[in-house]
């Protein structure tokens, strides 16, 4: 019983992953700005934590990220729901092993972009009447000037733009996931998915089959 309490207590690497996920969202976004990339890349941490720890921690990363961001850029708050959805979806996909295979990971950019594009467009329409801030708004404005109505302009602009953002995002997630050592996976809620994909059975092998002193940890 006390063993159980020890396990449940230490099983919580998750609460230490959440702040890192939030920081990853920020630093990814900042670097995208610094490199003058035309994409946001500010949901890598959300998807990463969702993929490793499950939907709820992922959603939390998204929520807090947008909350913190809103201190300096309040309109971000309105789009918090997107980042929450990314986290939930990443958890759902992660559990199904999507992020263990490169092509499946790349394919996941489609649902992420659909959520980001459609929901993003809807929020822009509902909260900002179709014209929010950021590079996207200029494209929307240009499309409107070209004769599209505000609703169409938002969907036409935002869905492809979000796809452009999500492909490098999920690629970064994939690269990072491949770099995480086994002993960290072993302490994360969805770690087993990745360990199984690496062909590792959760039971340790006590026999010395390879002469590696100290063993691989």
């Amino acid at each position, binding site marked *: 019983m*006390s*063993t159980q*309490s*020890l*396990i449940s*207590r*230490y099983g919580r690497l998750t609460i230490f992953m959440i*702040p890192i996920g939030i920081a990853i969202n920020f630093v990814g976004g900042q670097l995208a700005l610094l490199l003058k990339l035309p994409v946001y890349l500010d949901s890598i941490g959300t998807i990463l934590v969702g993929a490793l720890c499950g939907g709820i921690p992922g959603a939390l990363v998204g929520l807090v990220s947008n909350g913190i961001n809103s201190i300096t850029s309040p309109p971000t708050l309105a789009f918090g729901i997107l980042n929450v959805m990314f986290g939930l979806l990443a958890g759902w996909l992660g559990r199904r092993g999507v992020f263990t295979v490169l092509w499946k990971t790349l394919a996941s950019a489609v649902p992420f972009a659909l959520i980001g594009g459609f929901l993003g467009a809807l929020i822009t329409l509902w909260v900002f009447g179709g014209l929010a801030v950021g590079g996207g708004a200029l494209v929307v404005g240009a499309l409107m000037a070209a004769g599209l109505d505000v609703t169409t302009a938002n969907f036409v602009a935002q869905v492809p733009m979000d796809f452009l953002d999500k492909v490098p995002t999920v690629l970064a997630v994939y690269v990072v996931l491949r770099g995480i050592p*086994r*002993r960290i996976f*072993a*302490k994360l809620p969805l770690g087993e998915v990745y*360990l199984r994909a690496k062909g*590792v059975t*959760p039971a*340790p*092998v*006590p026999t*010395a*089959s*390879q002469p*590696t*002193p*100290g*063993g*691989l*940890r």
Partner: protein
Amino acid sequence: MDLATLRDVTFTYAYAEMPALEGVTLQLQRGQLYGVVGINGSGKSTLCSLLRGLIPHFHQGTLEGTVEILGKDLGEWDAAELSRTIGCVFDNPFTQISGIKDTVFEEIAFGLENLGVSRSDMLDRVTSVSEQMGITALLRKNPNELSGGQRQKVAFASIIAMDSEVLVIDEPTSQLDPQSSHAVFEIIADLKARGKSIVLVEHKIDLMAQFADRLVVMRSGEVVAEGPTAQVLASPAMDAADVPRPEVTDLAFALEAVGKGLGCVPVTRREAEAAIATRMRGTQIHADRVA
């Protein structure tokens, strides 16, 4: 009641090929300062994790044999109680800072806050510990902006402020200069003098020779020797484990090898100085006689 009793303990980390500890049988007494030495990968840190209860509950794997901490089986310990009873400091000063406090004062107080220590006690303890560690000048600084060495001192101060009965300390001086390292060892000796039981992993063998009561020598997951420091340092187990001896001990062995042994095996500078002084006086008397 002993500090820890390990009987034929073998531990293999999950997903590892080889056991990190193999057939370890060890009895550690209370109120002693145990030094643990061995080359990298010899199992020192794994031993610390075990004593601290991180194995097998945090680091999964297979644990065989029996481990008793303060007379109670490891599995029967309440987790929170174990972490209160056994303080732990490890080598990386960067991850040991909580990351949620913006002054060193609050950083040191953090552990006390978590223990529910009253505010006035907290202020007293933080003040006295920081005086002891010589870091009062840092108290108002941001712990996240300090150098590695300063962080290491803060991390150490934070743990000793919590005043636990047992301390497991893994390379507390990895980022410190010789002077600060010596100061940290003085503090560790002082803690022992106040009745704490201490298990200390450290590469600086000269300091170990001077301060540790007993030494545990490890090699590829096994304990190859355990006993009084001077005795262990002079034993062949040190060679077997590839652990260097203190300079003065090597010197004594070298003299012995050429037939000019000091008549004892010094392990600290002071002992060596005494032995050499005696020899010099002897030589002087001898020389006087010849003259």
